[in-house]
């Protein structure tokens, strides 16, 4: 089963790491609800809703670049939040070239089981090579049966 969310309404904190730094911003208007960036290295993260025992199969992002240049990187990450340990574990990473129009990039999660004490998120990073923007419209996760 896919669960999908409109990107601008579901994104986590989108402020740049430093004022004026690369960031994803709201893009609004007819047919254009989403997030947009003109900078390489802009990162936005989306939460994976916690349901213990849920099996994660894949994550996907609907996106576009305007001029067919650059790539987009999608990662899925987890971290143990029950202890002071602060190291993240990358569960999946997928990078694809900019499509001529919109496309869906998908990262395989190989049936990862969500477990207690860990947080999970989807991370999207722009890798622009020109001044033309990249846009994200949607993020989604595919889950299968719960084992608990």
């Amino acid at each position, binding site marked *: 089963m896919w669960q999908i969310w409109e990107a601008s309404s579901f994104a986590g904190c989108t402020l740049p*790491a430093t004022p004026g730094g690369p960031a994803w911003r709201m893009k609004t208007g007819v047919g254009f609800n989403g997030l947009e960036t003109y900078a390489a290295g802009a990162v936005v*993260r989306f939460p994976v809703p916690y349901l213990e025992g849920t099996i994660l199969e894949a994550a996907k992002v609907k996106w576009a670049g305007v001029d067919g240049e650059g790539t987009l990187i999608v990662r899925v990450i987890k*971290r143990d939040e029950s202890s002071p340990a602060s190291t*993240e574990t990358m569960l999946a990473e997928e990078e694809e070239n900019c499509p001529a129009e919109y496309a869906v990039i998908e990262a395989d999660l190989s049936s990862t089981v969500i477990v207690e004490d860990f*947080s999970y998120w989807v991370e999207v990073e722009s890798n622009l090579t020109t001044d033309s923007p990249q846009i994200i419209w949607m993020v989604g996760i595919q889950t299968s049966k719960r084992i608990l």
Partner: protein
Amino acid sequence: MPSFMKQWKDFAAVSSMSGNRKPITFPDEGWAPNNMDHPIKITCVHNDISTFLPLHYEKGTIISRVRAKFQGIGASDGIKLRIVKRDESTTDTAWTVIGSEQTWTSTSVIVSTYNPTDFEMLEDFSYAIEITSKVGVTAVSLFSVGVETNARLL
């Protein structure tokens, strides 16, 4: 449902605070994420700046504990945590604090846990965990918050 069914649900701060965090008093600053540095967290260099993580509504769910993973950068830097709710079926605009405000400081990464009296999530109310920066020296970073839920009554 017996107490052994209690479970923690943790949310990374950087992915679970929807939208921009742009305090009125410090435009473009406030709680902001690092970029690709690790560990991934949000950091605030100003004192007394609040940010909110939603508690997703499940009618009848009992919340028994709340925790936060954070690190103060300076000697007396840390966070204040409150669990807040508001009746959204009326014109009420003020938060009601559940339990009491907790103040924690630490210069190492630490997970601090608040154990209020168990409370049940009710219809018509919105719920959030409010994290406020306590910066006396340098800055504070927030990694995550978590809630421990118990049986659902409904």
